[in-house]
């Protein structure tokens, strides 16, 4: 069975800058892929490529039997891919409900949904993301966390199969992060595949089924969150080589100490 969404050898060059180089990974249906990496590693660029905003200079993204690069930006959501923006892009002069309603009108099921039905759908989603209280306020008057919630609600209004979340938890306090994580779990539970870009390790660890790590535009690791985080390549990418070497020595010493301890007690603890 062909995988749900495939990123095949994607490269992105802006003039001299090679933002992405030969990134390849598959995404299982219903999974949650955590996309991590230090600043400037190409995470947001990859999101733009997957969501069809950028056309990759090499390789392609395959989804629902189509190459995303061939699909015009405005039809990508009709295939089932929705996304939020790292720099939020609300319709400033429209009310919060209207912002979400536009997604409901032009998303995947938008064509056979009347204006009234779109507004009702928008109201539902506002309750889901906890913005019902400000439904009639102008989007311009929202706080940063609320604007992020609005981005999620607008993306959900497109009835997506795959939801790309670009640092929706940046700038949230602890309780807000937990609420956001719970929201994402609910959305995922309803069968929506998620690709999450975050810097908060705690969030990524708890929600991702698999993790992909980027550094300087290259994929340096993929797998279960626990293994990936421990691998020296990832540590080196985040904290630099010296630290990785020392951490490797520490790891080595700890393992030798355990072997020595086990030998002296003669039986496994």
């Amino acid at each position, binding site marked *: 069975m062909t995988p749900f969404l495939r990123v095949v050898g994607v490269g992105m060059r802006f003039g001299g800058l090679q933002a992405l180089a030969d990134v390849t990974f598959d995404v299982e249906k219903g999974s949650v892929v955590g996309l991590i990496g230090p600043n400037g590693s190409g995470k947001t660029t990859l999101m733009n490529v997957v969501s069809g905003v950028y056309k990759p200079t090499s390789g392609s993204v395959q989804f629902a039997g189509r190459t995303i690069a061939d699909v015009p930006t*405005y*039809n990508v959501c009709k295939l089932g891919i929705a996304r939020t923006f790292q720099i939020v892009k609300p319709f400033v*002069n429209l009310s919060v409900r209207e912002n979400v309603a*536009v997604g409901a*009108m032009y998303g995947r099921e938008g064509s056979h949904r009347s*204006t009234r039905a779109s507004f009702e759908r928008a109201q539902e989603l506002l309750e889901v993301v906890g913005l019902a209280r400000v439904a009639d306020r*102008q989007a311009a008057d929202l706080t940063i966390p609320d604007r992020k919630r609005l981005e999620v609600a*607008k993306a959900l209004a497109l009835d997506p199969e795959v939801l790309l979340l670009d640092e929706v938890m940046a700038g949230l306090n602890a309780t807000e992060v937990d609420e956001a994580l719970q929201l994402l779990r609910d959305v995922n539970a309803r069968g929506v595949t998620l690709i999450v870009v975050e810097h908060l390790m705690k969030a990524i660890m708890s929600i991702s089924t698999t993790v992909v790590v980027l550094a300087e535009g290259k994929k340096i690791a993929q797998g279960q969150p626990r293994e990936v985080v421990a691998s020296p390549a990832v540590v080196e990418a985040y904290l630099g080589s010296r630290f990785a070497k020392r951490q490797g020595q520490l790891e080595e010493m700890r393992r030798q100490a355990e072997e020595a301890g086990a030998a002296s007690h003669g039986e496994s603890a």
Partner: protein
Amino acid sequence: MPAASTGTLLRKVGFGGITGNRTVFFIMCGVLVAMLGIPALHNGYYENLFRGILMFSTLSMGWNIIGGYTGYVSFGNVVYFGIGAYTSAALWQHFHQLNLLLAIVVGAIIAALMALILGIPILRLKGPYFGIATLGTALATQEIISNIDWLGGGSGFPVHQIDNFSLYYYAMWGVCAVSLAATYAIGRSKFGYALVAIRENEEAAAILGVDPTRTKVQAWMISAMMAASAGAVFAAANGFIDPPTAFASDTNIFPIVMAILGGAGTAAGPLVGAFVLTAINETLWGHFPQIHTLFFGAVIVLVVLFLPRGVLWLLNVRGGWRGLVNSLGAYRV
């Protein structure tokens, strides 16, 4: 130095949908219906004056679709007004057809085609470049038509007038009513929200599934049809059409000032603007025959400085007078 997006200027006023303040909308519908009684006065001057208001309201509503709702400030809608006028004149001159309805329909279709052909390349431009490209189209079209002998060349040609002159008034009323209804319908429809989404943030709108190019071209075609239908009736009512009359710069600029004065991006804004501006112009002209245009320039300056978001915006200015005053400095450096 990125200027604030047109959206911030065209802040939605009032509640419920993007049609603008509902009470003012129904008041204006009432005023429009009341205007049906004008011909009964048998005063040619009033009929001419109010037919002018209806014409400019239609043009202003036409501009409002592309400039107010979609945020693409066009300075070339007079092209479609001219096309409508010349269709009506050509139908009479070459086919001896005087059926006004036919002239309106044919004029609207030709204008819509022209908007389609012009729209695809020009609507890719942004801000001042789009504005001047449309202004350039208006000037070029006027000069090209004045060199086409089949269309009367530089000297233009007459349009035969029927005796029951009030017919032109009712025709213009009909065109205006249809435009108002269309604007209100658009304001409540998905298409309307697609326009407003493009005005607010075109890239985000595309992400949400709105096809920018197709939607913008459709908006400009509707805009063109409204302008052309007004032009078709004007040509017959005026009795004579030549390039300067059909493509006058007043017909190009006044509808924009009216939309802004009334409150662009709303349904009733253009109508309110047309009334207020005509009232100002008539009273100025009545009392200062020689220098009324001078005062008119001053009025435009004052309106833009103190009422950038239109009369309807006053309905919802928050914080009373203080809100009004400190919002004036919003764009200072």
